């Protein structure tokens, strides 16, 4: 495995998910919750996260393309450039064409974010971020699948990316909102924290269900057997990803079933403790999510397990 390529892919997946997650949290959680709690909340910090993540997504995306030009041509980068491989990869391969389209989408997203004080531009930014994240499916194993499973695999993979972004990408904005609620020490902000956590929890449930269904589809197509799951590098990476996912799921369950109901009593000490625990657990979940992205970064660089075991 190529360590630099894995790092760059992981950074790009994480940054793209964070961009979409920050905007999803803003549009679907924070703004409606602030309205429900009658809190005049600034959206600047969420937009700042989206800007930072988009910048990282652009840089890591560019680095990914450069590394792939060398990897796809099988030449050192300077030789690949001298051999004229840059236009070949960018205009005549699936990865190059999709990457150019995604680059244009990222620029459009940047323009929309620039005008994010206008509601319509904010929604456009959200749609662009969703498209940027979902289109990652066209750069991975799913695009290589042949036959009747080709389209279901691509759609499943795109939904998998979107669900991961909606859940993991929303964690840092949630932590920020909860931390702001603790800082304000105001009943209206406590109500905002509760409504936002409930709304996030619903998005989390939908995301987890989508991740499980599409993950099973992916595993069926790319792994196919318990032997492949155990005996191959791809299978072991998937096991690691599943282990991390299980830990995240455990934390999310504790948050939803134990701490979120206690947040309703935010005026008392139990509510304050719930707010503190939810903030801390959200941060730990985000850390585990980052580790999942490293596993995803590595998964795309190895051959699918199903092709490596004899039926």
């Amino acid at each position, binding site marked *: 495995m190529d360590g630099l390529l894995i790092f760059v892919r992981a950074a790009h997946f994480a940054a793209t998910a964070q961009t979409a997650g920050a905007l999803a949290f803003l549009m679907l959680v924070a703004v409606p919750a602030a309205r429900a709690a009658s809190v005049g909340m600034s959206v600047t910090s969420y937009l700042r996260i989206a800007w930072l993540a988009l910048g990282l997504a652009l840089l890591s995306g560019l680095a990914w393309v450069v590394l792939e030009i060398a990897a796809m041509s099988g030449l050192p980068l300077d030789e690949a450039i001298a051999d004229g491989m840059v236009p070949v990869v960018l205009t005549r391969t699936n990865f190059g064409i999709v990457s150019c389209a995604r680059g244009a989408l990222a620029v459009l997203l940047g323009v929309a974010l620039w005008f994010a004080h206008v509601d319509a531009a904010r929604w456009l930014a959200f749609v662009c971020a969703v498209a940027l994240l979902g289109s990652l499916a066209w750069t991975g194993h*799913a695009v290589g699948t042949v036959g009747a499973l080709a389209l279901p695999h691509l759609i499943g993979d795109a939904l998998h990316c979107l669900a991961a972004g909606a859940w993991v990408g929303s964690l840092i904005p949630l932590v920020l909102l909860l931390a702001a609620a603790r800082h304000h020490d105001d009943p209206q902000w406590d109500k905002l924290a509760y409504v936002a956590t409930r709304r996030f929890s619903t998005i989390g449930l939908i995301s987890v269900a989508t991740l499980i269904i599409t993950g099973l589809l992916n595993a069926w197509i790319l792994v196919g057997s318990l032997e492949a799951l155990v005996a191959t590098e791809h299978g072991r990476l998937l096991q690691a990803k599943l282990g991390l996912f299980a830990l995240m799921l455990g934390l999310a369950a504790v948050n939803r079933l134990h701490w979120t109901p206690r947040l309703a009593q935010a005026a008392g000490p139990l509510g304050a403790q719930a707010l503190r625990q939810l903030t801390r657990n959200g941060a730990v979940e985000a850390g585990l999510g980052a580790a999942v992205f490293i596993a995803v970064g590595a998964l795309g660089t190895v051959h699918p397990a199903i092709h490596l075991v004899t039926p």
Partner: protein
Amino acid sequence: MLRLVGLVLLMWLLPGLGSAAAHSEFEGAEPAAGSTVRPAPREVAIWFTQRLEPALSSLTVRNAAGQRVDAGKAQVSGNVIRVPLKQIGPGSYKVDWRVLSVDTHRTRGNFTFRVAE
């Protein structure tokens, strides 16, 4: 806790690293690898497990003297690459392939087939 998770993951992953590099995505060929055929084939076709990139995939066929006997550029359609052959006679032929799948994995390999008297 994160440090512990990282350590467990590393121990889990280390035994498997490097195992994939020795494998290819080759699925089958016509004429089949190692086969003896008669009459001489007019083309060589190879099937792979994933869709291929036409711009960065190639297929060549040489006779026992090392001379190219393929006639023109290899054509890619989905997960199949094929190349027409010149008129060839009895003997041994070596097929070299180098392909890039659309998910950016590069693989290469070779096999031989014989044309019987």
